[in-house]
Every structure is written in C-alpha cells, then in structure tokens.
C-alpha cells in the first residue's frame, strides 16, 4: 500500500506557532511581499466567515473586516516540515516528500513491524503528533492515496481497497487533479465537475480536447499509474548562522556576512571533506517573518568562493532587513566524480597517443578520428560552441 500524509495549511500552522491565540480567530496567511495579493491558507474561523484560501486580499477584508493577517514564516514552515519528515523516518518509514505538507511512504516494509496496515498508519500519525492535524490516506496507487488523505479528517486514517477505487474516486471534485485553473473552468463548462464524470469519458476524446495535461488528468481520475514511492536520502545537518545586533538591509554587509557563513559552514567537522551539492539560505526578517531560498550547485563543490558567488544574487531577493542569516548545507556528496586526465601531458605519452590514433585511422578509415574546434564558445546553444573536424594527418 502507498500512504499519503497530508497536513493542509502547514505554512499557516507554522506561522501561528508564534501567536497561537490567532488559531481560534479569523486569520489567514498574508500574501508574499513581492507576489500577487492572494491569501494563503486560512483558519477554520475565517472559513466560517466566508474567507477562502487564494482569495484576493481586498475581497477577503471586505468579507471579514476582523480578519487577522499572519506574516509568512517560510523558514519556520520548512523547519517544521523537516522535523515531521524526520519523525516519520525515525519511525521506520522511507518517506518521499512531495511538497510542503504532503509526503508519501510505502507501508509494506513496516506492516509486520507494527502488526498490520492500520497500526502502521496509526504509528505514523503518532510520530507526527497531534498539533499539526495530520491525516493519512492509503491505497494501491499514489493519486488514490492523496485523494483518500484529502477526504480524511484530522487524525483519521482512510484506506481504500483496489476494488473500491472507482466508486471512491467518482464523487470527488476535479480540484484534486494537477490542472491549470483554466482547465477546470473548461471542464466545468462541459458539465464535468467530478472525477467520476471525467473518468467516464473516452480517453482519446479527452486528449484531443485538453491535450497531454488532460490525458494525464483522465489517467489520474481512473486511479493513476502504480508508480512506486522513492524514499528520500535524509538531508545533511551542517549549518552556520549569524545574528546581527540590529537588523541589516545593506547588501554589502549581507554579502560579507554570507562570506563568513560559507567559510564557517565549510569548516565544520561534520562536513568531513564532502562536497556540497545543495545549499539553503534562510533569514529571520525584522518584520517577524522569515525567508528561505535553496540552490542546487551545477557541480558539487567545496570551494567557498564558488558557493558565495552562487548564493550572493539571492541576497537581492530579501524583502526586508534581516535580524539573523543562516546557511544550511542541505545535500553533501562524496569527494569523487571529478574527471581526471586520461593521459598526463608528458612528451612520451603524447607520442604514444599519436601512434594510437594513427592505428585507429588505419583500421577504421579516413574521418574516424576528429578534433574538437571551438567556433563560438560564448554561445548559449551548446551544439553551436564547437565542431568535430576530421583529423587525418
């Protein structure tokens, strides 16, 4: 069985940890500082007052004037989610996080450990704890597990057997499908509002009308493919942080602080000469919120200058002055994988290489040995940078 753990509104729940009293009042996660003025998740009280997630800020305040806006805490939410995933991993589950608040895991390997499917899923809920209102859906396929989690109540486990799958999916709304907003409207205009209605249409007709996305949605509405879950490799825990005596907005100061953090993180003994593949830069903002960006390096590196150069442009995206800056080395690799020279550049080796190439030419014919000639190394199109020119002499 594939299980899906879902925590709707995790970003809001993480942000509310600073002001828990707001959880019982109409409150919503404020829009991102530089994004569209759309609300994030909302509390139950706000929903009862007519406020919906994704609503425009102006419309929401007109609907519910007492609505409290909660500053997003992206770094806090990431940290909380990481703790939840780790708690599941500590309970023996190989977890594949899909997005913030949604993770999949296979139960097959742990069912015997916990005495069956239901006890294993209960153990997973217990590992997460009650404060997050987590719920679990389980089914033979990923999408069906997600659908089951979407109908489960907080703390509930919903298991869907394969033979019940079509009946279970049929009455569920189309919004469960990963489609663009325009596609839902298109389907609704055609009178298709439930998964069962979409699944009942001929696949070819859906693909013709809605393209590959529509075909994929049609597949999912029929249960989806039986893709397996791939447990993640737990991230490394090497981090360095710097707290400023007063909030800093000056980019030059932040760049200097970043250089110090890179040096300090790389020097930590936990890194053990490993190269860095993925880093995260997080900040606690003066306004009370937080900010976080992750970056995967093009090539794993332990060169502080390279890491600093890769991260520095992200500092310009900071929306407010910073009280604390933190650098996390999220993914580390072993110090291998660098391509070494096949032959050292000694005169004797070059002569042997020439002899070898002559023999290859003699046996395979003219044009079989080529040399690479750079013609436009600056080009953004890789195949325009160099040509293969036959080397016949």
């Amino acid at each position, binding site marked *: 069985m594939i299980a899906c753990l879902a925590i709707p509104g995790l970003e809001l729940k993480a942000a509310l940890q600073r002001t828990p009293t707001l959880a019982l009042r109409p409150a919503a996660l404020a829009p991102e500082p530089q994004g569209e003025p759309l609300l994030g998740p909302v509390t139950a009280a706000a929903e009862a007052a007519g406020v919906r997630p994704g609503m425009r800020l102006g419309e929401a305040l007109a609907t519910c004037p007492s609505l409290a806006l909660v500053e997003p805490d992206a770094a806090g939410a990431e940290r909380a989610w990481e703790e939840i995933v780790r708690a599941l991993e500590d309970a023996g589950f190989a977890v594949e996080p899909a997005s913030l608040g949604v993770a999949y895991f296979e139960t097959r390997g742990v069912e015997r450990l916990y005495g069956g499917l239901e006890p294993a899923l209960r153990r997973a809920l217990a590992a997460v704890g009650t404060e997050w209102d987590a719920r679990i859906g389980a089914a033979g396929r990923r999408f069906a597990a997600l659908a089951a989690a979407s109908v489960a109540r907080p703390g509930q486990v919903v298991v869907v057997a394969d033979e019940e799958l079509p009946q279970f999916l049929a009455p569920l709304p189309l919004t469960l499908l*990963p*489609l663009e907003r325009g596609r839902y409207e298109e389907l609704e205009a055609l009178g298709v509002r439930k998964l069962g209605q979409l699944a009942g249409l001929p696949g070819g007709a859906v693909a013709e009308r809605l393209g590959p*996305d529509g075909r*994929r949605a049609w597949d999912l509405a029929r249960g989806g493919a039986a893709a397996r879950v*791939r447990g993640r490799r737990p991230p490394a825990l090497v981090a360095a942080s710097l707290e400023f005596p007063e909030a800093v907005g000056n980019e030059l100061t932040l760049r200097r602080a970043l250089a110090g953090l890179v040096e300090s993180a790389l020097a930590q003994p936990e890194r053990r000469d490993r190269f860095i*593949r993925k880093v995260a830069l997080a900040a606690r903002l003066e306004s009370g919120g937080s900010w976080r960006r992750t970056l*995967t390096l*093009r090539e794993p590196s332990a060169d502080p200058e390279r890491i600093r150069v890769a991260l520095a442009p992200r500092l310009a995206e900071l929306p407010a002055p910073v009280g604390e800056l933190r650098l996390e080395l999220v993914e580390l690799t072993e110090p291998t994988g660098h391509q070494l020279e096949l032959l050292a550049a000694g005169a004797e080796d070059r002569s042997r290489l020439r002899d070898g190439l002559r023999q290859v030419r003699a046996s395979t014919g003219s*044009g079989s040995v*080529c040399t*690479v000639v750079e013609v436009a190394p600056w*080009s*953004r*199109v*890789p*195949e*325009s*940078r*160099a*040509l*293969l*020119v*036959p080397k016949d002499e």
Partner: protein
Amino acid sequence: MVTRSRIAGSAGAEGRVVARFNAPRAARVEADANGRPLDVNHRAVALLREEWRVVDRWWTEDPVVRGYFEVVLESGENTVVFHDGASGGWYTQRGA
C-alpha cells in the same frame, strides 16, 4: 532540430565532413504535470539537480526555445535533457 547538414555543407568545399560537437540526441522522456522529467530513456530520475531555459536566435527563422533539466538517474548517471519548444520533442545533450 540538429542542423548538421548546414554545417557540413559549409565545410564541404574543403572535402571534409564536419559535425556539431555535443549535438542533441532524441530521447524518450516521461514528464510530470509541471513538465519536469520523471523517466529518461526508461530509467527513472532520482534527483532533479537544476533547471534552466535557453532562448536564443529569436531574431531568426529558426529560434531556439529550450527548457533544460540536469538530472541524476537511478543508475547514478548524470544527464542533461531538454524539451524543445519548437518541435515539442525531448533530447539529451552533453556539454550543456
């Protein structure tokens, strides 16, 4: 897509056939709803390391619009694939 012929033609006068280095090769790629590769040539993608877009030669009749993805396959192999906006096809490419 792969314009070998034009290059070969320009060098034909010298009697040598040249080819583009790191020319794209057609690949069978399965992508998710967001267009990110899940499977490359029947091998599952274990990690998406980086993605970027290349938009070039827009002033010509043969513009380049590509979405590149650097992935690590389950076998441990690093590979770069791109989705070509013009043809709608997927290609692997070295040296990207």
